[in-house]
């Protein structure tokens, strides 16, 4: 009888531990976990599909409910600059790239917790407002102080992240995400 009660108690503790661990893991996981690394970007190859595990799906339901599946949109997230350092609010970075072959694309800066950053400029750089150079490429400045040309505000306490969205990506890109030509993100000045 004593052994049975001990066994039941251990089982109960195990179940409670599993529930606590699951809830805790959802709370402590950084936003948008589980992407596939492409260069220094992370892309979500199974978003809005049942192909991912329960933990990623639960986290995405919290952070990205209503997001489109990869065949309609690819979401690339960048948390570090090219030298591997965390992107910090108020610091100056330049994003250098070329527009993708897509129906729509955009570059947007968010707080680390995926909140919007207030800006007196445009909240995103996209096909409607991007200023291209003579070679068809762009340089977007991310900084705490408004700048002429392509500019996104990084005015935020704490870390920031950059989201690069590609809508209606070409099938060849879906087949091989590593073939994506993704923008570089370089620190190019101090912090405000």
């Amino acid at each position, binding site marked *: 009888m004593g052994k049975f009660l001990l066994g039941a108690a251990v089982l109960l503790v195990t179940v409670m531990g599993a529930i606590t661990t699951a809830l805790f893991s959802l709370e402590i996981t950084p936003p948008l976990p589980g992407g596939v690394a492409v260069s220094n970007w992370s892309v979500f190859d199974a978003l809005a599909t049942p192909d991912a595990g329960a933990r990623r799906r639960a986290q995405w*339901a919290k952070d990205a409910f209503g997001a489109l599946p990869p065949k309609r949109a690819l979401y690339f997230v960048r948390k570090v600059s090219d030298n591997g350092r965390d992107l910090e609010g108020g610091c100056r970075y330049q994003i250098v790239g070329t527009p993708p072959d897509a129906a*729509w694309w955009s570059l947007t800066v968010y707080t680390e917790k*995926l909140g919007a950053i207030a800006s007196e400029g445009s909240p995103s750089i996209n096909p409607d407002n991007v200023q291209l150079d003579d070679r068809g490429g762009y340089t977007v400045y991310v900084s705490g102080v408004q700048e002429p040309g392509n500019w996104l505000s990084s005015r935020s306490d704490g870390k920031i992240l950059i989201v690069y969205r590609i809508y209606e990506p070409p099938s060849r890109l879906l087949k091989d995400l590593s073939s994506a030509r993704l923008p570089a993100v370089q620190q190019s000045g101090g912090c405000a």
Partner: protein
Amino acid sequence: MRERLWPLLLFVALLGIAFYVSFQATLYYRLNRTSIAKEDSIAMQAGGLGILGRNVTLRDKLVNPDFKYSACVIDLRSGPYVVKGPAIDEYWSMAIIDRVGEAMFTASNDTSHKAGPYLVYATGYPAPESSSGYTLVKTTEPQGIVIFRILSNRENRPKLGDVEDELYCAPLRPIAF
């Protein structure tokens, strides 16, 4: 010695299974709870089931400022729904997601049938008697949300209000209360 070890090993295996099942069940519980809360919020913003809400807030995080969202909570158990996108060349998209946010059907101005109209019904429920003039869409789940993404007002683009006027999401037959 061996005879005494077996019950212990079985018990350890049972603990492992109990941990795994409880862990997964908790995650699914949270997934469902989170999604149902989002669905309720969207239905409330739209004004009820089967009503298309304009400029709906899907979530408070990671919002794309380029788009305005229109959304409609659907329940195909009571019959098919008619869903239609805008007949414009500018980029827009439509997704029918299930109750946990996973896409059951998507369309955009890039896809073959584009704006529709679509006649949507669910697996396990009777197909519509007449589908003339519609593109049939069969979903895997009977409950879900239709989400339209429309580009915000911009120069030289169709006005947002005009585009929203072209969207449609409603039961084929009025819901009986």
